[in-house]
Structures are given as structure tokens and as C-alpha cells.
């Protein structure tokens, strides 16, 4: 064999040398070179990126190490709006903690100094955190949250010179839209010690998070997923040494798609914020739903809170501030608060009279300044009456109290409370949000049980116009107008449209009818028309009549609380109804029902009507501005 001639002009090796050369040995040499360097490179990559237990180390079970099974927390599902925008997601955050028991006092100063440099933290602050803790020596003390990945890496690597210091990775819930939709999305919080024991069978531990509000709470099971199990080696102190393997992989949580589009939510919020600001009050609700299937279109409840405050671990000061606010920002007033419904409850009274054949649509009632019952005068809200006689729908459109009282005397309390319950009052709507309350439909049985007497006639009259003992939630009012629009179906309102599972399959939420009002079609039609009359009545409609929409409406003013020095009561404003696609009120094809509630407004006009107009003009993209901000000035002239 002749070796290659690489030396130009030079004679190659002599024949003797060529004979003595052994090509095989050079091939062997080449192979050794290749294997050595390839082996070193491979080993380097294996140490860095391979499984931990291939690092040339053997298990140390004999040295007090134990193998234990540990739960693997699955990734929590996302929450998306109707258009697929992310409303709740997870980010990984690192946190640094110290177990004081592993940190001897002799090296503490040095460790704290090094840690301070890595975390860019004042060492004095770390010392303070350590010294302030009164817990067990082995209970880790949180030094820093939201640590950068680089810093966490450095600390991990330095653990030989940072005894007692450890890093943990946590999934942090982030809510990109924060306050805008926090009442619907809710938030997660860490499980506390008391809950941990009751939740333990479901696989929760004290380090886990659980939904606390909104769909985070009501869909906790779907969002959470199924925890997996892994085997880990821990040392004698129970600290993780290495991960040995996954026994059962976790199934990540399902994602929720809401029925709410964030832009629709923004419209409701904008209208409500404007109204509250101009009426100089703070609490209110704007909500809308599709009467055809119970899907919530928007649900704004103010004041609100930033759910990101909670997922990051809320400071006590901030939490106390939320709690101290008299308007309860942590409460979704749409489902979690009840108020007297005021005249919006006249839907119940008038439909009840019609459906029980106590009146006909053409029956006329005298509109007088007051009605005397048991020697007491009950005044019309304008203290004058509306002149002459009124049909029920005309009275409804004026929101006449005197005619309502006359109807109430015909209906009597038993039928009235039955009709109230038929429209869904007095019971939760079953919406897929936590903390919904029932409200109250008073009847004789309730009165005897609660106030130890029957209801007086005057109280029955009050009940017929949504005052007295009547208590409703805004979602119930919304649901009653949705049922009016769809001819009687009381949907279980829902904010979740579909659930997307970890494997990609989608389960749509099927609309569920929670009940039926059970009245005649003619009654619904007459009441839809009555609402339309109200919306067209130039005075009471407060300008809605001018809007190019087929709005059916019922307003309400509900007094509450205690009289002021002039004998006036503060009041809330309500507005509820729906928008029909055509002017044919015999049809039940509306896809938009709404409710507006304004707490403690005491405004010259009905603040809820102003917000309704603004909300509708935003929702239907009307070019003209129908608002009349002057009516949001302080007034309190209603003596209803």
C-alpha cells in the first residue's frame, strides 16, 4: 500500500518503511481519536441535558435518603374569551426561600451577602425576613418571589456555598385583562392549612392553588386537570435530591372559552363607568345575555378588583383596602348582591293579572294621585296621576304606582308570590359562577315564619311594585326579561361557551332550561308590547324612544335605607328589557336582553336609563349620542 504523497517534490518513505507501516494501526488510531472525542462530547451533553441519575452518581438510599411518591401538578387550563383572546394564563416564576435550620449562624452573613448580590437585594432585608419568622426551623421562609431564571440557576449551582437556600418553580396565574373581567374570570389562591385537610382526598396539597372566584372557582375541576405521580428521592430532611421517574403523567387542565367577548365586556364597562362617574356613585351592574340560549354577552359589576393582585399573593394592606370599601369590590353584584327590584318587578305584577284573567289588555283603570288603603294614602310617584284612565300596558309604560296597587288588590299576595317565582325570582338562576344568592319573594308563609305575622295589605301593595320585602339579584332581573323575550324559557345563564380538553377535544356547554314561566303566549306578547310602549313613551323612556332600535324596557326606582332630614329615601335605579330584531312583538326571537343597576344614585333622572342608552349605542354602534348627562345630576325628587 502506498501512502498518499503529500510532500510536493519530496521523495516519499522508503520501501522498507512502507512495508513496516501498518495501515490497520492508523485506522485503529483514527478510531480511537474519534471515539475519545466523541465520547467526551457525548458525555458533556449527557451531563447537561440527560437524566439526572446518569451523572455518574449512584442512588444514596442507604444514607437516609428515601424514595417517595409525589404528585405532579398539571398545568392549569387557560380561560379564553369568545374570540380566543387569553383571559387567564400561566407563567413560570422562580422563588427563593431559606430553611433557617440548614443555615448556621457562623456563615449566615456570608450567605446573605452572596444571596443579596445574586438577587440584587439588600442583605439587611434578607436578615429581617429571617429574623422575623417565628415558625419551625425547617419551614422554608420566602425570601424573594418573581426571581429571574438566571438568578435561580446561579443559586441552584451555588448551593454548596449557600446552605439552606433553595429555589422553587411555581406556576403563576396571569390575567391579561385584569379588572375588566375579573368578576367573571375570578382568581386562584393558595390552599390554606384548614382547607388542605378537607381537600387532601382530591389530591390537593398546601402548595397548590385552587380557584377562589369566577370561573376559576366554578370550573375548578376542569381547569385543574388530573395530577400525575412521580417518584423522587429525598434526603433525610425530606428535601428533593433527584427525580427518579414519572409513574403516572399528569393530564393538563382543560381550557374554557367564555360566551363573553372582551370587546362586548368593554362596552358594558365603559357605559357603566361613565354613568357611575357622572352620577358620582360607585356601585352598579350592566349585564346582557342572549335570550335564545342563556349565553351571557357581557357582565360588568363595579367596583371591581385586579385578579392579578391575588394570583401574585395579595399583600395584607391591599386586601384590607378591598375589604374596607363599602361597595364590596370583591363581590360580583350581578349574582352576589340583592336589592329591591323597584318597578322592574311590575313585569311580574302585570303579567300575573293578565295571565290570571283578572284584567284584559283593554281593561281601564283610573289614574289618580293616590290610592287609599286601610286609611292610608298611597301616592302616584308624580303625586298627580297621569290623567283619565289607563290600560294595563299604558300604566306599565308610565310605571303607574296607583294602577299597580289596584292590580295588587285583585291579585292578592299568594298569586303575586307565585307569579314572582314563576319568573325565576326567589331562587338562584343556576348561573355557572360561584356565590349566587336567591333573593326573596315574600308570601304569607314566609312572613309568618320570619316576622311572626301575616303581611299587611300595604305590604302587599309594596311587594307588587318591587318594594317592601322584595329582594332580587340583577341576574334574576336579566333572566326575567330574557324569558319575556323568548316567551317563557328560564335558561340557566352561563358564561362558559365550551371546554377544550388537553387532548384537543371540545365539549360545548349545552344550554339548560332552568324552568318555564308557564304563562300564555298572549301574556308574553302583551308584556313585550307594554315594554315597547314604555320605551316609546317620550317622558319615562328618557330618550330611548329616539333610538333606532326596537327596545322593550322597564325602568325601576327602588327606595332603600333610611330617610334623610327632608324625609326622602335614597334610591337605586334599574332598567331591564331586551332589543327585538323587528317591530313584530308577537315574535320571540330577540338575541339581546339587558339589565342595568345603579346603586344609590339619587339622580334627577333615572341613572340606569342613561347607562342603558349609552350601553345600547355602544353595543349597536349607533353614531348619534343619545346621552343626557344633565339627568345624572343629584336630584332625589322621586317620591315613588
Amino acid at each position: 500500500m502506498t501512502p498518499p504523497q503529500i510532500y510536493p517534490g519530496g521523495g516519499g518513505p522508503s520501501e522498507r518503511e512502507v512495508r513496516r507501516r501498518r495501515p490497520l494501526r492508523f485506522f485503529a488510531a483514527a478510531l480511537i481519536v474519534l471515539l475519545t472525542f466523541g465520547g467526551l462530547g457525548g458525555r458533556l451533553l449527557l451531563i447537561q441535558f440527560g437524566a439526572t441519575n446518569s451523572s455518574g452518581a449512584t442512588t444514596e438510599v442507604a444514607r437516609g435518603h428515601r424514595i417517595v411518591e409525589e404528585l405532579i401538578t398539571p398545568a392549569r387550563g387557560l380561560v379564553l374569551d369568545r374570540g380566543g383572546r387569553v383571559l387567564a394564563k400561566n407563567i413560570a416564576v422562580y422563588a427563593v426561600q431559606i430553611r433557617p435550620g440548614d443555615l448556621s449562624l457562623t456563615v449566615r452573613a456570608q450567605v446573605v451577602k452572596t444571596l443579596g448580590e445574586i438577587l440584587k437585594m439588600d442583605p439587611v432585608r434578607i436578615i429581617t425576613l429571617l429574623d422575623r419568622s417565628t415558625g419551625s426551623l425547617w419551614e422554608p421562609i420566602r425570601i424573594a418571589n418573581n426571581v429571574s431564571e438566571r438568578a435561580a440557576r446561579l443559586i441552584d449551582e451555588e448551593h454548596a456555598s449557600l446552605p439552606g437556600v433553595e429555589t422553587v418553580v411555581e406556576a403563576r396565574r396571569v390575567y391579561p385583562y385584569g379588572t375588566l373581567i375579573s368578576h367573571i374570570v375570578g382568581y386562584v389562591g393558595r390552599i390554606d392549612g384548614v382547607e388542605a385537610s378537607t381537600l387532601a382526598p382530591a389530591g390537593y396539597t398546601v402548595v397548590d392553588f385552587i380557584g377562589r372566584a369566577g370561573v376559576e372557582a366554578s370550573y375548578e375541576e376542569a381547569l385543574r386537570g388530573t395530577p400525575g405521580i412521580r417518584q423522587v428521592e429525598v434526603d433525610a430532611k425530606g428535601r428533593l435530591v433527584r427525580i427518579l421517574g414519572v409513574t403516572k403523567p399528569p393530564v393538563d387542565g382543560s381550557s374554557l372559552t367564555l360566551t363573553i367577548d372582551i370587546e362586548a365586556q368593554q362596552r358594558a364597562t365603559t357605559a357603566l363607568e361613565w354613568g357611575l362617574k357622572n352620577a358620582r356613585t360607585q356601585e352598579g351592574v350592566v349585564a346582557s345575555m342572549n335570550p335564545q340560549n342563556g349565553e351571557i354577552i357581557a357582565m360588568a359589576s363595579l367596583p371591581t378588583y385586579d385578579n392579578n393582585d391575588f394570583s401574585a399573593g395579595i399583600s395584607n394592606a391591599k386586601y384590607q383596602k378591598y375589604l374596607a370599601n363599602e361597595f364590596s369590590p370583591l363581590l360580583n353584584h350581578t349574582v352576589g348582591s340583592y336589592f329591591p327590584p323597584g318597578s322592574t318587578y311590575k313585569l311580574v305584577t302585570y303579567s300575573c293579572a293578565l295571565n290570571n284573567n283578572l284584567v284584559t289588555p283593554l281593561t281601564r283603570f283610573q289614574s289618580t294621585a293616590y290610592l287609599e288603603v286601610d286609611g292610608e294614602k298611597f301616592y302616584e310617584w308624580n303625586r298627580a296621576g297621569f290623567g283619565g284612565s289607563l290600560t294595563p300596558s299604558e300604566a306599565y309604560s308610565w310605571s303607574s304606582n296607583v294602577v299597580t296597587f289596584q292590580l295588587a288588590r285583585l291579585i292578592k299576595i299568594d298569586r303575586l308570590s307565585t307569579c314572582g317565582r314563576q319568573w325565576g325570582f326567589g331562587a338562584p338562576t343556576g348561573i355557572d359562577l360561584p356565590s349566587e344568592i336567591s333573593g326573596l319573594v315574600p308570601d304569607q308563609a314566609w312572613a309568618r315564619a320570619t316576622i311572626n305575622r301575616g303581611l299587611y295589605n300595604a305590604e302587599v301593595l309594596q311587594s307588587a311594585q318591587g318594594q317592601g320585602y322584595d329582594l332580587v339579584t340583577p341576574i334574576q332581573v336579566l333572566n326575567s326579561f330574557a324569558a319575556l323575550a323568548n316567551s317563557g324559557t328560564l335558561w340557566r345563564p352561563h358564561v362558559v361557551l365550551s371546554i377544550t380538553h388537553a387532548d384537543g377535544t371540545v365539549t360545548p356547554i349545552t344550554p339548560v332550561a332552568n324552568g318555564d314561566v308557564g304563562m300564555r303566549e298572549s301574556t308574553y306578547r302583551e308584556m313585550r308590547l307594554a315594554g315597547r310602549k314604555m320605551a316609546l313613551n317620550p317622558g319615562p323612556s328618557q330618550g330611548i324612544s329616539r333610538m333606532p332600535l326596537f327596545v322593550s324596557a322597564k325602568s325601576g326606582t327602588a327606595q332603600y335605607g333610611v330617610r334623610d332630614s327632608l324625609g326622602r329615601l335614597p334610591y337605586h335605579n334599574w332598567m331591564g328589557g331586551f332589543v327585538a330584531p323587528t317591530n313584530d312583538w308577537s315574535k320571540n326571537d330577540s338575541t339581546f336582553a339587558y339589565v342595568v343597576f345603579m346603586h344609590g344614585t339619587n339622580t334627577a333622572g333615572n341613572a340606569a336609563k342613561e347607562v342603558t342608552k349609552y350601553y345600547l349605542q355602544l353595543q349597536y354602534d349607533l353614531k348619534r349620542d343619545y346621552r343626557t348627562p344633565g339627568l345624572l345630576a343629584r336630584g332625589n325628587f322621586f317620591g315613588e
Partner: protein
Amino acid sequence: MNRLDSPLGSALRRVDWVAAAAVGLLALTGIGMAWLNARSYGQELLTPSSLLVRSLTWTLLSIAVYSVTTLVNWRWVRTFAWPLYAANILLLIVTLIYGVDSGGNNRAIAIFGLAIQSSELSKILTLVAISTALTRVDRGSGGLQDLVLAGAIVAPPFLLVVAQPDLGTALVLIAALFGALYLSGVATRWVAALASAVAAAGVLAWVVVLADYQKERLLAFIDPNADPAGPKYQLLRSLEAIRGGGLFGAGADGTSILTPLPVQESDFVFAALVRAFGAVGGLFVIVLLAILVWRLVWHSWTSPDEFGVIFAGGMATVILFQTFVNIGMNLGVAPITGITLPFVSYGGASAVSLAFGLALVQSHRVHDGGSSPLM
């Protein structure tokens, strides 16, 4: 006359620039690591005693030695092989008597303020002697007499180095002996016989000669977790540093606030490098060394004379062995011995000696033996 036809131009054309570039990049990496380590140890960078300045000094010296040796005809070295061998033995004896501990296992004698580790130079000079001797022997067989002669040449420096005690360099000498014999064509059975003898001597040494701390170091890599607080601590730290480096490392700034690794300027320089520059940095150095070794093997294979075959092969073995043991101990696959990573470790005399040896291979190529008969 074309410039390239001048003797210098002709020489420059024959230089193996790939190997030279690999050496240059490794030396640059070494300077970078010296800078990083100086920062890591908290040294003032521009003082005469800082790692960086000392490393630069040695690197400049290495460049000078490399350049001059490349241009000088290798035959001069071969001619003076035996006087150089004798001087080397003498230097080792002087070191043994007057040398001071240089921090690792190597003993050094101070010349002009620089610590000279004579054991490093002995690797090259012994290899020169072996190559010269085996070339001169008229060997029809490539048999026993080659083996005996080579063994006789290696024995004195080997024993003197072991006595220092510099176990690492002694092992390099043995490896070089094997590489040279194997590539020079000595019959397999004799190489195998020598291997058995060395193994037997190793067992004997384990029982009789080695100190407990040396045994502990040698065994540490088998199970570094056994006693994290003890001598295995070094390897554990090394493995952690490598794992912590990730793909791109913590960077120079990130590294500067980390606790230095044990002997991170020489023994654990590779772990420090991976910690700072990640797997990318580690693979870069591995690839450079692979290129260098491959070029040496290629020189050996294509050498027109016996000296080139043996010497280049021996040098390839030296670099390969040092690389394997140094990186291997960083990665927990080889025992912890005080062997430097060629040019990347702060090795002082190690870098200069290797530069001399590698330049001799260059010189052999430049002044190729083909045009003149063997001496």
C-alpha cells in the same frame, strides 16, 4: 524570484495552518479562561502576579518557542537528542532535590521568577529520544529490542517524575511510550506484553507506593456522591458547574459572582469553561483538540521517515491522553489526576513544552526528510 520561492516562503507554505490555527484558538481560550479565573478569584487583573498577566507571559513565550522551532530544522533537535535527554534527567533530579510545590502535584523550580515544571518538558524530550532511538535501530522485526530500548529510555524520567510525585505526568509518559511503539510498528504481542507489565506494576504501586490521598483521588470519580463533604467534593462541584452551564453558560459576568471551583485554572478549567460558556464552549474546545490530534495522526501516517511517524504519533498520544484524562475527570469518567488541558489550563511550562513538541512536528513537515537521506 517569487517571494514564495524563498526558503522562508517555501517553509510557510508547508506549515500545517489547520493545526497552527487550532493551537492558536486553544491558546486564546486559555487566555480567556485566565482572565475569567482571575476575576473569579477576585484578582487585580493588571498586576504582575495576576493569573491573566502570568498566562499572557507564558503564552507569548509559547508563541516564540512555537515559531522558532517551526522554522529551525528538526534535525538539530534529533542531533542533540541525547544531550537534551541527559539535561532533562538532570533537571528532574534538581527539581526533586530543590523543587517547590507549585500548588498541584507538580514540583517546579523557579527560573527568572517563572515556575518551571520540569516534568512537563520531560514528556517532549523523552519522546524525542524514543523517536531518535527507534529510528536509528536497524529493525527487521520491530520486535523485542525496540521495546526494551524504548522502555529503558522512558524508565529514568518516569521514575523521577513519580518520585516528585507527579502521577499525572508519569501516566502521560507511559501513554506516549505506548503510542510511539504502537505506531512504529512494534509487534502486537510485545505491546500487549508491555501493557500487562504496566498493569502489574500498577497493581503493585497501588499496594506499595501510592499514598491514601492519591488512591482517594483516583477513586473519586467512581462514586462522587459517596461523601459530598470529602475529597469527592471537587468532582461534585465540577459536575454541578457543568450541569449549571446549560447550553450557553452563565456568561463571564454571571461566573464572576460564583464561588470558584477547585483548581479551576488547571485541573477543573473545563468545568469552569462550561459553567461560563455552556455546552457550546465545551464542544468548541473538544472539537479544536480533536482537530489537533487528528492532524498529528495524519502527520504520523504520511511522514516520509521513521522519526516523524514515531514523534508525531507520540505527540498525538500525549494530547489525546491529556485531553481525555483532564476533560474526563471534569466529566466524572476518569480519575482525578493533576493533568492539564492542553493550552487551556494555566499550565506554565506545560504550554511551552507542548508548543515545543507540536512545533517540532511542524518543523518535520517544513524541513521534510524526503529530500535528504536519513542521518
